[in-house]
Structures are given as structure tokens and as C-alpha cells.
């Protein structure tokens, strides 16, 4: 039976209890310069910073123990829906030789090789999306979305269109409405029909003069392909709107159909999802924002272009920059290696193989009490099951099922998303999980569902095999007990008054 490491690891500030000075590294010093005085005035000078005092060994052992109480794709399957947790090939790390030591403001003639890499991947991303240009400026998917909606806003402003409404599907990722609202748009939701697809009649009735654009992911978050995409594009374009593609779900159709050919005008990609960049425990990611036709001029800069040499260019009507320099180029280089390693032969297989994995999982779970919207429709990159029937009959919720999966050494699916599915379990196996692993995950899930009917109490207290049990969320978030730093812990200990966040 799987068991996670369970260290009683103190917070780093409490590792050295001796009160003596220790240090983990030596600082290089130029003896000859030691006579240079540091005469900072009192109003500036700081005397001490409260940092841990530890040897290298203590720091290493501490963080290695913490890593043992963590779970990544290298440990096991992470079926998080919409997160595309595929295996990250180790050769990607070799790419750092062309990024690590180079400063983004270096003279372009000294970094031609790195710029060439950026240029090449821009070209490849244009090819796989069917767009005219791609900028690598955005460090993550949501930053890509923000860039996209800012482009749409600027385009309409410059063409004199008064448009303040952004349409968003009700199955959309939460980032879509959040991004639209950051750019100052009013968000209008388009309800899905009974099949889980955009209700095109409703869309026709809602889209109008004020429609700036429509943000859509295809396949959608239910894993369903929006087969009416050509009609959807037509409706939006008739109203002079811009069709925006949220690339978070591209993995399910990569090599089969391209956003540009579906009628999308602006597309963002999550290189850390579709193109195998590791997720780093939440980040860093990397993104790209691509555009077609009239929208190309609005892309954030730089775009890497080529004449006799490679150089950074600014599109004519560019919205500007989303981050201070070129974007997360270290990770762009990892995606570059990922594409090189798959080649056109491999990239063309991604959509097929990830779709096969998802549908095999559905097949393996077909005799369970998990329910599926439009069960006759094939899924693409992911599938959303509803555990409502199980919850009604046993009291065991999607939350409990997720926790019980942890006990079998699997990470849990995304749960309670999208909000239109009750007790949602959103599962994305990806093309990098073998059929054996998918079977074993399905068997685990089946065992848990059986147990829900036999011993629901046990599931409601899971997980048991992880470093800690269920956490007290009320305590974690209550103004009188919320603890976001050791500084607050210490102040609470020292102060007689309660430290309340108010």
C-alpha cells in the first residue's frame, strides 16, 4: 500500500535552536576593496534582517524532506482536468544553455542563437494554431488572456466601435471572465445547452452591437468539441466581434484541427500544458499569444523577426508589454525542446493519443454510477463525471472521492468545475499515461465507488496515507486565526491581544 513520507519538519526558522551563528554558503570577497566605507545615513541604514542561520546540509535536508511530502508528475499520475499534467521529458533541461546566463537587455548581436530559437518556436506555434503571428511575451495562460482582451479593446477603440461587452461561455475557465473584467469589459455569460455545448440560438439572441468578442475554449471544459464553431464564428464576426481562443484545452485537438481554421482571431497557448513545460508547483509557466489578420498589429512586443539577423520588433499598434522583458524564455526553451523531441510526427499524434486516453478511461468506468452529460458524444482531452447520484445515495461527495484517490497514490482530479455539473470530477489523463496506468486509476476509482456504498464513513475521513489528514479550512481562513506568515505566528505568540485581520 502506498504511503507518503511523513516528517515532523519544523519551520525553517526553528531548525537552529542553538542560538549560534551558522551559514550555508561563503560570500566571495575582494580584500583590496574592504576599505571602501559603507556610510549609509541613519534614516537609511538597516542593522539586521531576521533570516535563518543554517549550514548547507541543514538547508538541503530540510527541503529534501519537504519535497518528499509533495507530489508531482514524476511521482505518479496527476489527472487534473484542464491542467494537462503530462510527463515533462528530462532533456528539456538541456535547453537552459541558451537562456540561463543571458541578460534580456543584452545587445542583440550577442544573443543571435537564443533569438533564433525564439523565432523558430514562434513559427512552429503559428503552424500548429493556424495563426499569422505569435508573441512569446506572456508568462502564463491568464496573462495571454489579458493580452488578448486588451488587443480586442484597443482594436475596437481604434476602429471607433463602441463595444463594452465580452461574451463568455458558462463552461469557461474562471480566468476568462476575470481577464475580461481586468480589461474593463462587462461579462455576459452564454448558457450551455442540454448537450453541454454553446447554445447557438441563445448566442445569436445575445450577440449585438456592443459585443466586443467571445472567449471560448474548444474543446470546452466538458471535453466536448464545439461542433458548431463555424456558425459561432459567423455570428461573432457579423457583429464585428473578435473570436478569442482559450488554448488551455488545445491538447485534445492538436494535429487534428487548428484554431485559425475554426475562425478564431486571437489565440493564447499554455506552453506548460500543451508543450510539456513542467508546472513547478503552480508556476512558472510560459505562454504565447497569437493573432490572425488585422489583429496581428496589436500583439504585445517583442516579436522576433528575421532579416540578416534576428531582432526584436514592435507590432505597429501593439498593446505594449505584459511583463518587464521578453517573457518566460527559460520555459519557452523547454517547450522548444519538447517540440524538437516529438517532431511533426509526434506532435500530430498528441490530439489523437490524448483523446484515446480519455475515451478509454470513460470506457473503463462505464458500469459505475458516475454520470456523464451527453454520454454518446466522444470526449477530447478530458471528461467531466458527475458524482451526484453517489452523493445522493451515500453522502460521499466528489470531494471525498478526490481525497480517497490520494490514498491510492494518485493525485486527485479537478473537482467542482465546471460549475454547470454537480459534484463534478474533471479528469484529464493526457497522452503520456500508459494504458496500464489508466486502467489502474480506473480500478482505484471503482473500488472507491464500491466502498461509498459499503463504508461511506471511512471515505469521509480520507485521506489516511498522506503526510497530514484533512485540514481545518475554517480555522485557516478565520480572521482571528488566519496565519499567512511566521511573522504573524510569532506576533500571536508574543502578544497578549488576539491578532485579528480586520
Amino acid at each position, binding site marked *: 500500500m502506498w504511503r507518503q513520507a511523513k516528517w515532523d519538519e519544523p519551520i525553517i*526558522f526553528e531548525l537552529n535552536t542553538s542560538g549560534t551563528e551558522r*551559514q*550555508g*554558503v561563503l*560570500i566571495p570577497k*575582494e580584500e583590496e576593496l574592504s576599505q*571602501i566605507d559603507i556610510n*549609509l545615513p541613519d534614516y537609511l*541604514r*538597516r542593522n*539586521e*534582517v531576521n*533570516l*535563518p542561520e543554517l549550514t*548547507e546540509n541543514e538547508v538541503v535536508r*530540510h527541503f529534501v524532506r519537504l519535497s518528499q511530502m509533495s*507530489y*508531482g508528475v*514524476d*511521482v505518479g499520475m496527476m489527472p487534473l482536468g484542464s491542467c494537462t499534467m503530462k510527463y515533462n521529458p528530462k532533456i528539456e*533541461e538541456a535547453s537552459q*544553455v*541558451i537562456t*540561463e546566463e*543571458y*541578460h*534580456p537587455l543584452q*545587445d542583440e548581436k550577442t544573443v543571435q*542563437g*537564443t533569438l533564433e530559437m525564439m523565432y523558430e518556436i514562434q513559427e512552429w506555434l503559428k503552424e500548429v494554431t493556424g495563426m499569422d503571428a505569435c508573441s512569446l511575451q506572456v*508568462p*502564463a495562460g491568464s*496573462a495571454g488572456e489579458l493580452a488578448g482582451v486588451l488587443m480586442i479593446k484597443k482594436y475596437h477603440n481604434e476602429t471607433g466601435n463602441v463595444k463594452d461587452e465580452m461574451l463568455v461561455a458558462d463552461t469557461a*475557465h474562471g*480566468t476568462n*471572465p476575470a481577464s475580461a473584467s481586468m480589461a474593463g469589459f462587462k461579462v455576459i455569460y452564454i448558457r450551455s445547452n442540454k448537450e453541454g455545448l454553446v447554445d447557438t440560438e441563445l448566442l445569436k439572441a445575445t450577440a449585438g452591437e456592443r459585443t466586443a468578442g467571445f472567449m471560448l475554449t474548444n474543446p470546452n471544459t466538458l471535453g*466536448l468539441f464545439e461542433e458548431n464553431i*463555424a456558425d459561432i464564428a459567423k455570428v461573432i464576426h457579423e457583429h464585428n466581434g473578435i473570436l478569442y481562443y482559450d488554448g488551455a484545452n488545445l491538447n485534445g485537438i492538436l494535429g487534428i484541427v487548428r484554431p485559425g481554421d475554426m475562425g478564431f482571431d486571437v489565440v493564447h497557448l499554455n506552453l506548460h500544458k500543451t508543450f510539456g513545460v513542467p508546472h*513547478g*508547483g*503552480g508556476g*512558472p509557466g510560459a505562454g504565447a499569444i497569437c493573432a490572425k489578420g488585422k489583429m496581428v498589429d496589436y500583439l504585445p512586443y517583442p516579436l522576433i523577426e528575421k532579416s540578416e539577423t534576428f531582432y526584436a520588433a514592435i507590432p505597429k499598434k501593439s498593446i505594449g*508589454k505584459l511583463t*518587464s522583458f*521578453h517573457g*518566460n*524564455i527559460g520555459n519557452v526553451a523547454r517547450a522548444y*525542446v519538447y517540440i*524538437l523531441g516529438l517532431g511533426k*510526427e*509526434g506532435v500530430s*499524434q498528441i490530439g489523437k493519443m490524448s483523446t484515446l486516453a480519455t475515451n478509454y478511461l470513460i*470506457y473503463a468506468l462505464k458500469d459505475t454510477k458516475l454520470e456523464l452529460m451527453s454520454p454518446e458524444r466522444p470526449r477530447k482531452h478530458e471528461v467531466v463525471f458527475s458524482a451526484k447520484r453517489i452523493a445522493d445515495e451515500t453522502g460521499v461527495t466528489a470531494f471525498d472521492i478526490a481525497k480517497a484517490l490520494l490514498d491510492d497514490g494518485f493525485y486527485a482530479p479537478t473537482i467542482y468545475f465546471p460549475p454547470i455539473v454537480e459534484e463534478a470530477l474533471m479528469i484529464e489523463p493526457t497522452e503520456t499515461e*500508459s494504458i496500464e496506468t489508466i486502467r489502474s486509476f480506473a480500478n482505484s476509482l471503482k473500488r472507491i465507488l464500491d466502498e461509498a456504498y459499503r463504508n461511506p464513513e471511512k471515505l469521509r475521513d480520507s485521506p489516511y496515507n498522506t503526510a497530514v*489528514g484533512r*485540514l481545518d479550512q475554517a*480555522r485557516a481562513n478565520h480572521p482571528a486565526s488566519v496565519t499567512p506568515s*511566521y511573522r*504573524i505566528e510569532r*506576533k500571536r505568540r508574543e502578544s497578549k491581544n488576539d491578532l485579528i485581520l480586520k
Partner: protein
Amino acid sequence: MIHPWLPNLKSKDRILSEMGINEEKLFSDIPHEIRLKGELNLPKVMSELEIKRKLNMLKEKNVKLKYPPFIGGGVCPHYVHEAVKFLISRSEFYTAYTPYQPEISQGILQALYEYQSIMAELLEMDVVNSSMYDWGSSLAEAVLMGFRINGRRKVIIPELINPNHEKVLRTWVEPRGINLIKVKPSNDGTIDVHDLLNKVGDDISSIYIQQPNFYGIFEKNIEEIVDIAKKKRIVTIMGVNPLALSLIKPPGVYDVDIAVGEGQELGLPLNFGGPYMGIMAVRWDAKLVRQMPGRIVGKTLDDKKRPGYTLILQTREQFARREKATSNITTNEALMAIANAVYLSLLGKNGFKELGEEIYRRSHYAAKRFIELGASKKFEGDFFEEFAVSFRKSYEKIHNKLLEHEIHGGLRLNEMDALFCVTEVHSKEAIDELVSIVGEI
């Protein structure tokens, strides 16, 4: 085709026949008219060895420099210790996802909590989030926070703000109708408080102070500026080079509302633009904390009353609040935050101070040598790490001459001026060579 990253390629037919379908059934919902015709125009599949050759070929096209570049502008070359690289390469960290399932993700949650805690000590502020993208985008989010708090649409920024951050700020906030007003520097390069007073009114949303400013110069009237702002209920935002905080007072001392900064200087390589690490912190004030973007890890107890960590205050975030969220940020720079925590833990109290002092001395030594050559400093104020020099010749010429010697000089500011960055990676010997080549021109 057989491929090491695609385990089911060869068993596809068997799997399909077990399911009793053909492949076309899986894609029957994709209209034929829009499907990709022909093959993708991408390079052919490569083995690891071929990939490495390709990468080395690209590396060869970059100029091999004798020393790390003398260039800053908000990110600077620093030495990254092997233990930092080793620890953030632990698979369980670097292939993890956002710790939505806290029971199985305690280690990474604790590591992020420790980042927040260490950064809180560095800044002397109580609440730090677990990372933004970089300094520029942190600043933009801070200004948007200020707007949400008081609804005002004018923001005061210093003329000597890092121009790279200013570009980001404009992209993020101007489409919201927020206007940036610049306050002039005095002769020493610090904010001119008189000019600031002329511009402050009840319509100002926030005031931004960068410490040290773009030219590396320490601001000196921060207390007074914060005082002026507080009287008008203006949100105060301070941007800091976290490495300078080894020597100078942190933002918490001035009681500013929001602090932002760049964690690149604490254990990250240059990465040609990123990944970097946006620092963001706020005071212990519910109004500020509830408006803060990004993820926050908190400490709590598990069902057996053992201490444990989890993501907290998530009702601020996009997946819960959608269009009413404080920000759209999801993917952040978590692994870089862990790198910051490891780096600062290794340096410790003493090493951090020593590093700050060494950088101060080396950068002052370099500036002094340039002045001895007849160049002049653009501003007289004291500085850290970066400094601006006016030469009597075209800087372009100096730059190209340096490149002939495989040395990358500073950042060209205009015809005769350049901004140099000198850190612990630049030995005295390297500095001497830099200066003597400039002297030869």
C-alpha cells in the same frame, strides 16, 4: 512510429478494438471542412543526442563573454549556488501543480509558506503572496488594487521609475482609464518632494516609490512622502530591490500599504527575460489582504490537530469569483519563490549582509574608477549595485570596443550615458579590465 513520450502509440489498435470503435468515432464531432489537411510543417523528430547538438549549435551563435554582462536594468547577474539549483530540481517540486490537494502537497505548501515568511522578514511586512510574474506585473497589480480600494484614477510615479516596469504598468492600467503622473527628480536623483506636493490631490489613487530607483539611487524622503499620501488616503506602493534590503530599511518600516519587487536577484539566473519572480506584500489590514491578487498559503491544523498548510483566502481568486476576482492570475512563479527561500536560507543573516556589502563596495569601486577616467556620475545620490555614468564619447563606440574584448558593458541610456550593474560575480580584475578598455578609447 515508436516514441518514448507516447506510451500507447503501438497499442492504439488493440485499445480501440477493446472499446469496439474505430478512431474516426472519436473525432466524428469535428466537421471535415475545418480539419487540418496535410501534415504540419514542423521539424522532423529528433533523438536526445540530436537535440543537444542543435542546442549547442544555437549556443555557439551567441557571443561567448569573458565575464557576466555589466548590465542590470532591474535584473542582474548573480551567482546561484548549486544547492539552490539542486533543490528546485527535485522532481516532487518541479513537476507538481498548484497544491489544490493540501494533504498530499504539504511539503510544497510548507516551502511556499516559508518563502512568504522569509520575504515577510525581509520586507518587515506581514502578508506576502506566494508570487506574481515579475516586478513590472506586480506593480501593475498593485496599482489596480489601489484603484479598487479608492476608485480614483490618477497615479503618481517617479520619473526615474524603471522604464521596463513603466511599460508594463501602462499596458495593464491605462485601458482602465488610469492616468500616470510623473514626479521630477531633484539634483541628487531622488524624488523632488516639492514637485510631488504640487501634484498630490484628493483625486490621486496611489503613489509609487522605487527604492533604489532606476539609476540605483537610494530615495531619502520616503517617510515624508508616505505621510503626505496618508493624509489624502492615497494608497502607498513601494518597489524594492530585495538585495538592497541587506543594507537599507525595508518598506514595512515606512508603513506603506503594498510592497512589490523582483525576486530574480535572490537566487535566479537571468533566463533571458524569465522566469523571474514578482514579489508582493501588504500590511496586516483586511481591506488590503482581501484585495490582494495571487495565491497565499496559510498555516492551520489537520483533523488530528497536527500543524498543516493549505491555500487560504481563495474567495479572492478567479476560479471562485470569476469576473469579480481580484485578478486573473493562476499560474504564478511558485518554484522561483522556493528558489528565493532556499537562497536566503543558505545565505542566512550574516551571509546576506556580507553579500549586500560586497556588492555595494564593488559597484562603488567601479563607479570611482570611471570617474577617475573623466566620466561623471549622472546624479550625486548614493547608490546600490547600479549606477549611471556620462562619458565624454559616444557610448555606442565604447560598447563595441568592449565587445571586441568579449566584455558586455552597461545598458545604453542615450548618446553618452550608460547604466552599469556590478555585483559579486564581477571580480576586481574584471572591473579593472572593463575600466581600462574604456580608458583606451
